[in-house]
């Protein structure tokens, strides 16, 4: 394979890793900093992606009557990419607020089940209600930012810059927020809810804010994904691909550590791609099972991490602020 091809391949790897890094950062807010056991990442992934998709594409009726026969969307605003991103974040934040209302008072494992249920419910709704976003067929032809600037085959370089830029912006924002007084309270809550001498209502309020913040980030991740692949459908947002792998990334990199979240995303995505090379070596009869063998490896990887190095590669951040403790 020639150099150009290798670089192009690495670029596409980096884009996906960067997108997952965004998700991992969002999960880190939920779990790493607040102790919210969110197994429903796929739900926010889904909502973020679909929201951005529908904000940035026109209504099928406005394209042509024939098009409207094949594609059904509940709305289409045909606005630029950046609006799609922001819209995804806002809608996810709003949904997080609605979800948080009944569920944040629950204990951790109940919250986890609730998040599974919510993610599954969203996926089912998007799959079954064709009028919403074209049902199982999903949406295609999603626009990309800065589309006309270069030849299509070089476009990924631009998108890589976009993804990394957004990832860095998010990283810096989170680091800022965590060092603020708000962030310190969050830490205190996670360490010991009872000892942090606040009323129960206040604790719930902080958790809600954290839930919303993290979910908005996940929404951005979903939007980034949608505009990279240019097509989305409900079967992308499965518990395996949309939730589990992100948990493995955060655990591998180090929960409670933003650099760890990013590192974990890149490392685990690298391993995921690496397993592809492994399974390419498999005999023909097993080739069809390759993706499942790869997921099996990822699953085993998680268990090994949990037992032998639960703090991940980077461990938890030691000191958040010199002013604390």
């Amino acid at each position: 394979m020639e150099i150009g091809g290798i670089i192009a391949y690495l670029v596409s790897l980096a884009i996906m890793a960067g997108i997952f890094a965004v998700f991992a950062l969002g999960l880190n807010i939920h779990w790493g900093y607040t102790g919210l056991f969110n197994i429903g990442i796929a739900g926010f992934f889904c909502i973020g992606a679909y929201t951005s998709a529908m904000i940035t594409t026109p209504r099928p009726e406005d394209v042509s009557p024939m098009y409207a026969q094949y594609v059904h969307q509940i709305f289409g605003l045909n606005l630029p990419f950046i609006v799609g991103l922001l819209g995804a974040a806002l809608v996810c934040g709003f949904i997080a607020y609605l979800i948080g209302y009944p569920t944040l008072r629950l204990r951790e494992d109940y919250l986890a089940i609730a998040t599974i249920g919510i993610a599954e419910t969203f996926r089912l709704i998007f799959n079954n209600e064709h009028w919403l976003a074209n049902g199982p067929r999903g949406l295609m032809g999603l626009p990309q930012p800065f589309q006309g600037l270069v030849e299509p085959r070089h476009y990924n370089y631009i998108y890589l810059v976009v993804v990394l830029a957004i990832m860095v912006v998010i990283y810096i924002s989170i680091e800022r927020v965590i060092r603020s007084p708000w962030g310190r309270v969050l830490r205190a809550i996670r360490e010991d809810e009872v000892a942090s001498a606040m009323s129960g209502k206040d604790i719930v309020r902080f958790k809600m804010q954290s839930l919303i913040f993290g979910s908005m980030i996940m929404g951005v991740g979903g939007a980034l994904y949608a505009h990279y692949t240019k097509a989305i459908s409900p079967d992308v947002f499965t518990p395996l691909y949309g939730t589990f792998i992100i948990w493995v990334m955060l655990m591998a990199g180090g929960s409670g550590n933003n650099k760890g979240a990013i590192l974990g995303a890149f490392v685990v995505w690298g391993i995921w791609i690496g397993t592809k090379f492994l399974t390419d070596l498999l005999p023909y009869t097993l080739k069809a099972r390759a993706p499942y063998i790869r997921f099996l490896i990822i699953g085993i990887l998680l268990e090994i991490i949990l037992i032998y190095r639960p703090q991940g590669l980077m461990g938890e951040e030691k000191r958040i602020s010199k002013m604390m403790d």
Partner: protein
Amino acid sequence: MAELIVYGIVLGSIIALGAIGLTLVYGILRFANFAHGDLMTAGAYVALFLVTGIFPWLGIPDTTFGSLSFGWRMTLAFPIAMACVAAASILFDRILYRPLRRKQSGPVIMAISALGASFIIRMIVIILWGADYHFYRPGVLRPAIMLPLEIKIRPDQILILATVLSLVILLYLFLQRTKMGKAMRATADNMELARVSGIDTERVIVWTWGIGGALAAAGGILYGIDVQLHPGMGWHFLLPLFAATILGGIGNMYGALIGALIMGVAQQVSTFYLMPTYKPAVAFVVMILILLVRPQGIFGGGRS
């Protein structure tokens, strides 16, 4: 509608087998076993392997019992598959959960481990059998019996109800009358005191996983007999399982049974108004509603 309720009871009884095992594990080990649904899957597929692979090779005949859809093969496969999954559950505990227990990891870490285990089981099933649907006995027409109120029920389903009832009664007798059963109940009440009394809590844990796994396997096989097998079947049961367990109060076996029946009926009745694929969502919504009103469940004892 009456038929939906009847079938809801059948479905509920299948859920009950999983929910009872789940509530036992939850009550004694105090963590949410997200892999429990996939234990059901494992049971169903082990039975499939026996019925379509091993037993034909051993020469066991394929005749069916009367109007039931299965015969000797399944009758033998049923307890063997239960035992296999019981062993596998104990093995999982030894390899995955016990090291975490030793390190005193919190319930969330253990739940994440269970989540990983659920994916591992599911991937193994797909690798070995593929991602398609399977049947224990493909292509058979399932004759139905007519009951009053124009309810149709299949002989298979009557047997499912009978099997679940028997297993539940056996479990009840075990927990009430045997020394290990009482030790399990004691450990669920107060693990520290159980240790202080000299009860070997590690052995109790092994029994808990064995029984939980065996019951889950039974549930999976019965579902496979009634409907079909597919690798995601256990995951689809996860929400109803947890909903039933939480509804009945964690650690409460009878609560789990009632909760499961309620879930089954609710899910089936919902198909009158919604598409069948929404069933897990229905279980979820019912669970959220209950949790909002009464977090300790209908029969919960107020134990944290």
